[in-house]
């Protein structure tokens, strides 16, 4: 039996690893089920360990944060005090505005969430150095969650379940570029397709709203819920933040500011609703 010379063996090893990695990537993109099962199994071992390590190391990490972020914390404290004062001052106006929005939605026979069953989930904090358009939540198929279900907070829509496993799921957030969302501008009946533009950016509607439609900054925006839509109708999305007119296409381009804060989600609610009505656990 011939023995490979070391250099050739090393090159073969590298080629083998590269091929295996590419195969894994390919299987992952195709949603290969056994890979998800491996993921579930490994995580069921490591996650409890990680959870317990948190309680052991939290005194050290808290001490580090108060040391390294002292100035930031001071600034934040001042900022929060200022914001609290503003919030207190504006609370009456804010509740009046919310009441107006609810009243407006009721007036046009909007049934918020439509009485569908919901599941509350905690966002699993998995911060890495790199940004992501997704969050992970601690509910999965065991809790009746299915792929495609809408995810909201008390403020409004935040995204949609993109991957689901036994005890956890991934949620794609609305700010993901090219994430399509059918919306309706309340009061106009105008239906269009909004898309994300990245973290911290408003959604944008580039076509579908004709010149004659009167849309004002501040108009509420909800999900359209047209037939075949991935979302139930009338989930609160946001408010119109900008209106532009495209003289060439003779259409309006509008920006929509989300009412839900996507950058610091702690708890979310999954609406057990799918486009094909499959919500049974």
């Amino acid at each position: 039996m011939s023995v490979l010379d070391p250099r050739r063996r090393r090159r073969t090893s590298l080629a083998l690893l590269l091929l295996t990695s590419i195969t894994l990537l390919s299987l992952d993109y195709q949603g290969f089920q056994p890979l998800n099962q491996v993921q579930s199994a490994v995580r069921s071992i490591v996650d409890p360990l990680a959870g317990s390590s948190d309680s052991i190391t939290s005194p050290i990490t808290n001490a580090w944060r108060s040391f390294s972020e002292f100035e930031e914390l001071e600034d934040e404290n001042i900022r929060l005090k200022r914001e609290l004062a503003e919030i207190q001052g504006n609370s009456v106006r804010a509740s009046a505005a919310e009441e107006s929005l609810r009243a407006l939605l009721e007036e046009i026979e909007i049934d918020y969430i439509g009485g569908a069953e919901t599941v509350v989930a905690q966002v699993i904090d998995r911060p890495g150095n790199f940004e992501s358009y997704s969050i992970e939540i601690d509910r999965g198929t065991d809790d009746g969650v299915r792929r495609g279900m809408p995810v909201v907070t008390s403020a409004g829509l935040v995204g949609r379940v993109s991957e689901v496993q036994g005890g956890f799921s991934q949620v794609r957030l609305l700010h993901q570029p090219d994430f399509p969302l059918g919306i309706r501008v309340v009061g106009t009946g105008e239906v269009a397709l909004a898309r994300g533009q990245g973290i911290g950016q408003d959604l944008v509607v580039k076509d579908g709203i004709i010149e004659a439609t009167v849309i004002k900054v501040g108009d509420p925006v909800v999900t359209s819920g047209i037939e075949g839509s991935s979302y139930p109708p009338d989930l609160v999305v946001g408010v119109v933040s900008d209106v532009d007119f495209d003289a060439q296409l003779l259409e309006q381009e509008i920006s929509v500011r989300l009412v839900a804060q996507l950058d610091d989600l702690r708890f979310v609610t999954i609406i057990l609703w799918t486009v094909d009505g499959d919500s049974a656990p």
Partner: protein
Amino acid sequence: MVIALLILVFHLDVSPDLPIAGVSAELPLGLVIAAGLAGGVERGAYFGFVFGFVIDLFFFTPIGLRALVFGAIGWVAGHVFLDRIEESPVTAAVAIGGGTALGLASFAGLGVALGETALLESPISRIVLVASLLNALLAVLFMRVAHWMWAADPIGHKRFVT
């Protein structure tokens, strides 16, 4: 395996709470490079691949991306070992710091090429710079752990004689 598990748990739940300039240490990548430097091409490559694959299971980036990058970085680090560069704290720091920068840049580049555009919204230069410096500072520790890891691995010790 125990070492890798400890580093993984630390990376997932402790390291993010100890950021420096908003960047947390990329300990797994540092360990993979040290594993290649201390153990050679094949050990570095296989360890990097397996460790990268396991870490992939915890993040939103495609499964196989870290396996690919970590495996290749471990392979490259193993060649530095085979070239018999004298091992010293400075050499280890340069190799691990440089390898971390190369690994993170490759990870971000490949990720974007695969459609993970969220990576572009990250402060990539800052992440690469700070994480590389952190790993370079921890190089001696990584090398000690890697030497101990291979010495305590009876199967690897016999199989990967270089």
